[in-house]
């Protein structure tokens, strides 16, 4: 008996060692005994569950292990540990692009030729399946008496005009910590010089930096902050019904839209199942299921202020270590004001 316990402990220990990267959540869908395939994702289980359930509903003999990790950990798992997943989903487009560029993605046959626009895939390797606007969240209570900003210029003017109200009460991603935050900040900087003015204003008002969208929304709900800049829209959308105080604003000068992308790793064990799930997400059926929580691709054409981030090698530029160092240096300079 004791030997068994030791053996089990050893096996568990080894299994833990095999997953050297840090995971945030792990959940198994489908029947106990069915053979499983595994998905590594940055998307919270709760948000992704409807898609998985719709997928498994038609495939009773299959189980799915859904592992959630941060985008940096997803990148590290695939690049450094060659972790054997069958589908890798991440909102960090730049990291996904780098993985695909460096040869970690296997070829994938798209079954729904109509559904993916040119800018939303790279070769036959990396496919965007959801387009997520990156939004500004505001607490109606905190904004009482003030007009909601519609552009970045409005936002800058608003902050400048009301320093006492917003001091220490503006939230945004910490680009040092969050891959998504870094991507949003760099894309903002690409789009407009106003970004650096905004950064300076936020720095002067002692902006609070977060690791994740969820926590920003939590604090916003709790009344600890008044504004959250660059929050992933779908996260906010799931929380809005329970938080009537929060208003979601898509800035009209431009709203960066993030592609949630997936690829089937080159070393996938059940590549066919990974591809099947990705195809399901790109199919009209899958897009309809995701429509509630994972915004579909086709909205870009309807909303002129959306600027989807294209899947192209340009994304590699901000991953350059010197470029990153320079960018974060400037960011820090903007944040810490005397």
């Amino acid at each position, binding site marked *: 008996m004791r030997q068994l316990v030791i053996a089990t402990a050893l096996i568990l220990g080894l299994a833990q060692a095999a997953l050297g990267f840090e995971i945030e959540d792990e959940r198994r869908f489908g029947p106990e005994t069915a053979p499983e395939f595994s998905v590594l994702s940055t998307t919270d289980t709760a948000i992704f569950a409807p898609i998985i359930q719709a997928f498994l509903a038609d495939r009773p003999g299959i189980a799915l292990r859904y592992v959630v990790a941060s985008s940096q950990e997803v990148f590290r798992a695939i690049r450094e540990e060659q972790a054997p997943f069958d589908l890798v989903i991440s909102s960090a487009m730049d990291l996904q692009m780098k993985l695909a560029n460096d040869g970690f993605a296997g070829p994938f046959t798209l079954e729904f030729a109509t559904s993916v626009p040119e800018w939303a895939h790279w*070769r036959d390797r990396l496919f965007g399946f959801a387009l997520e606007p990156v939004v500004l969240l505001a607490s109606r209570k905190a904004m009482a008496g003030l007009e909601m900003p519609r552009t970045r210029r409005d936002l800058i003017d608003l902050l400048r005009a009301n320093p006492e109200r917003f001091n220490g009460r503006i939230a945004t991603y910490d680009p040092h910590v969050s891959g998504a935050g870094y991507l949003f900040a760099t894309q903002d900087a690409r789009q407009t010089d106003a970004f650096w003015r905004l950064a300076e204003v936020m720095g002067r008002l002692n902006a609070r930096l977060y690791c994740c969208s969820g926590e920003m929304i939590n604090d916003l709900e709790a009344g600890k902050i008044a504004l959250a800049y660059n929050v992933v829209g779908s996260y906010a959308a799931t929380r809005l019904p329970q938080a009537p105080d929060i208003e979601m604003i898509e800035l009209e000068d431009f709203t960066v839209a993030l592609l949630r992308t997936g690829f089937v790793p080159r070393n996938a064990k059940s590549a066919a199942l990974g591809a099947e799930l990705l195809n399901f997400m790109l199919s009209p059926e899958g897009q309809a299921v995701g429509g509630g929580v994972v915004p579909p691709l086709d909205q870009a054409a309807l909303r002129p202020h959306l600027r989807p981030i294209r899947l192209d090698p*340009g994304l590699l530029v901000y991953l350059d270590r010197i470029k990153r160092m320079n960018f974060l240096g400037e960011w820090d300079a903007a944040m810490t004001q005397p």
Partner: protein
Amino acid sequence: MKHDIAGVFGASLRRKMVLQLLVVAACLAVLLYFTIRSTADQAAEATQDAILGAATTSIAEQLRGTEDGVEIDLAYATFSMLGAIGQDRLFYRIDISGETVTGYDDLPLPDDPPTSLAASFYTRDYLDAELRIAAVARSMVVAGRSVPVLVLVGQTRMGQAVIADRLANRAALLGLGFFVLAVPLSLLSAGSVFNPINRLAEAVGRRGPRDLRPVRHPAPRELAPLIGALNGFVARLRGALAQTETFIAEAAHHIRTPLSTVRTQAEIALRQSESEETRTRLRAIIRAVEESARSASQLLDHAMVLYRSDQLEAEDVDLVELARHVARAFGPTAELKELSLHLQGDDAPLMTRGDRLLIESALRNLVDNAIKYSPPESEVVIALSQAAGMAVVEVRDQGRGLSGATMPQLAARFSRGGNVADVVGSGLGLTIVTEVAAALGGAFRLTPRDGGGTCASLSLPQR
């Protein structure tokens, strides 16, 4: 006969020619394919190299030396643009003083470091893919010292391969189309080359059996030797024939003259002879001489017919007048046998076109035959009529008939019926008539008459 000739024929020239044309077309199509393909490949590579080189140079030019190092600012647009053509994989490396400061530090270096600011290009394998790499070298001043900088940008060429494949497919289609077009064209051209030969063969084949004129059919220059040889052969044949006929005519003439002398002398001797035995012998001699003279005369006629039908001298001939003339000539012979020889039909002229001498010779032979084979006190009729555009001369007798012999048998040279041993004859008469009919485009027919006798009918095209 035709089968024997076909047996010795070798491979078809036409097939050979079509085959060769098709082989040439196929070679051209393949050549076309490879030419287009390599040109397209080169063009695509040159274009891609130009873009890659420009991007590399632009990155190198954006490097700035400062007091504490090098400022590197990779441009988003530059990278974005590099992916535009074929969504190729992209790798870069920036070395300063031989040390990699950013990018992929194991990206292969060029064999010879580039010396000028212009990019140099090379191809290497890297991370399971073939990379086209552009290298640009420059130097910068960092903290007062000059340091060398090397910028490498590498790109897979899958986009180029896709373009090249597409062009290659199109080139292959073009080549295939070219070849498909070449098939009917080569069939057509082989046809047009061999048509003159077929036409020539047809023209020669259409000729009558005695037509030995030289071939004057228009034909391509390449056929001139063949026609020349053919004409030479025809000329030799004609010469040989003419010689033979002339020889026969000469021989007949030389035989006939002494024969008539022999006959005259024999008749004189017959009249003067008292001995019945001698008279009987003399009569036999006369009979034999008569037979020989008739044969010689017919040989002469036959030679004349052959000769003249080779060189027809066409003129309008009135058959009624001609028949009357022949009847008058045979009048005494008929009277001798107490035969009634008369003409039947209208007095209106019955015109045909041909050689008068030939027609007369044919008529003479017919009437001669009729008189010869008729019993005494019977009737020989020369009937003239017209039917279906033909002028018809019929000579009817009440003689012994054909006794079952067929037309071709009787018309053959020196062949005679089986029931005529007692009558003098050479067997050439009907041959002559048949040949005349053929030479003038007419026909000759022998038919037995009801109640005994024969009807010999010669029809000639009416004028």
